[in-house]
């Protein structure tokens, strides 16, 4: 594990924060979009297992993580201040596949891992970004996303900004018109719907999956994703991104 100093831990919405940590450049250059890292805040025994986070952005020697406060670990993380030290292990997992002419679709905090993809793929940017959240207040980092000059389609569950409804409804209309490869990250229900859309319109959909992770490095075999052909993949070493038609989403409860 590496030690890193916090340079920023800023509230972006009621529950979403942007964390910036200072990391040596020769470590940072190993990170590819789609990979993740595990963070341990201190030597306390509860929570015990470091938590995994995707890489939101890298600028100079600062690595940014966009995270939502969900449980004990993220609550403790949100209380840390500039100058505090954390420990991390990474990069872990496989990078996103190299895609051409693709659409990004994010639900809620699912937007977190896509920032670094945009930064690293300036000459191969997605065709459009679809971004849905519960309300206007939960849509974060819009100014950052706008910098890449790609059309952004927005939806909110309550209609407080953009289309009223789920982002998958907008995405389905788009794919119907223009069938394109999809790269998606968000709640399980959203990913399931996208797998359905991909099947119906015969396009590839790559889904960034989530499950409780312990080791994150293939040691414990705890984070399995069921495969359609039978057997399992391990999210931490084979994922976290999977082609939707290869995984059995119905076998995940």
């Amino acid at each position: 594990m590496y030690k890193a100093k916090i340079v920023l831990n800023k509230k972006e919405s009621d529950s979403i924060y942007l964390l910036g940590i200072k990391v040596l450049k020769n470590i940072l250059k190993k990170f590819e979009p789609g990979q993740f890292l595990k963070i341990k805040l201190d030597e306390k025994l509860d929570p015990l297992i470091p938590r995994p986070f995707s890489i939101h952005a890298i600028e100079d020697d600062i690595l940014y993580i966009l995270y939502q406060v969900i449980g004990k670990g993220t609550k403790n993380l949100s209380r840390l201040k500039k100058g505090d030290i954390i420990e991390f292990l990474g990069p872990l997992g496989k990078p996103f596949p190299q895609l051409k002419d693709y659409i990004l679709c994010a639900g809620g905090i699912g937007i977190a891992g896509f920032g670094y993809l945009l930064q690293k793929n300036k000459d191969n940017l997605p065709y459009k970004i679809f971004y849905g959240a519960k309300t206007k207040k939960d849509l974060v980092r819009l100014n950052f996303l706008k910098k890449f000059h790609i059309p952004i389609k927005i939806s909110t569950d309550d209609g407080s900004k953009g289309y009223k409804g789920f982002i998958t409804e907008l995405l389905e209309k788009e794919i119907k018109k223009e069938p394109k490869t999809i790269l998606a990250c968000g709640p399980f229900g959203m990913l399931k719907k996208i797998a359905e859309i991909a099947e119906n319109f015969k396009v590839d959909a790559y889904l960034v999956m989530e499950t409780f992770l312990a080791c994150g490095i293939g040691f414990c075999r705890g984070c399995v994703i069921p495969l359609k052909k039978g057997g399992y993949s391990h999210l931490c070493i084979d994922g976290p991104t999977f082609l939707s038609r290869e995984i059995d989403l119905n076998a995940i409860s």
Partner: protein
Amino acid sequence: MLSVKIKNLELKTPLMLASGTWGLGENLAQFLKPKDIKKNIGALVTKGISLYPCEGNPPPRISETPCGLINFIGLENPGIISFKKNYLPNLLKFGVPLIVNLHGEKIEDFIDLAEELKNESIEGIEINISCPNVEKGGIYFFLDPAAVKILVRRLRKKWDKFLSIKLSPVGPVFEIAEICQKEEADAIVIANTYPALKVLELKPLKVLKGGLSGPAIKPLTLRLVYEISKKLEIPIIGCGGIISGRDALEYLLCGAKAFQIGTANLINPRFATKIIKEINTYIPSIFHF
């Protein structure tokens, strides 16, 4: 300075990596340098290997509880044939004594597994008795002293090298430990995980049943090690919730000859190095060298 000898097994340090907590070594060298592995790890205990490949359990397989971890992996492994062909050669390259953890569904399975490993250059085998015996209607070996007696006796006849039995912390633990001693196992590992349950969702009720490990169980297992070491001569390898040099030392001072770390590897793959370093800092004050 830390070297130990358990029967014929010579270990550079008393630290072993516990079964199922470092995969089959595929990614170990990515996180621990070869020289750190050799210097700090006394022995490597592989993931449980069965006669045939096993896919393991459907998700969810793991969940965290206060200071602990519940797992329900289901002994995912490639089976003994693939293990020997595809994994063993690389495992031996670490240059650290290798102990293969074995998992069977009946006594005969363990005998066949030992037979398969007879000519391999491993140091020993560790027998997982926390599994159901299909020949006896699925009663767990660890709840059935009579079955354990036959199992250890037959394995001892077959297997000359190091033989250790990994006990469950529940059931007739003292009786099972005594049988292992009588039937001349070289050591007992105290202990496996504790049967536990976590409520994942309240409505509809969704639970995860599995084995609890981590610092939460340390006081329980430490007590078992302490009490059993007072009664029996058989060497004890302590295993339960060790994540620091202090934890390890407590086990050693309470009757264990060596110890295994498990959940610690999942927190930080470099904990083996950290723990040995910490033990070394304690040694002068504890042992008055």
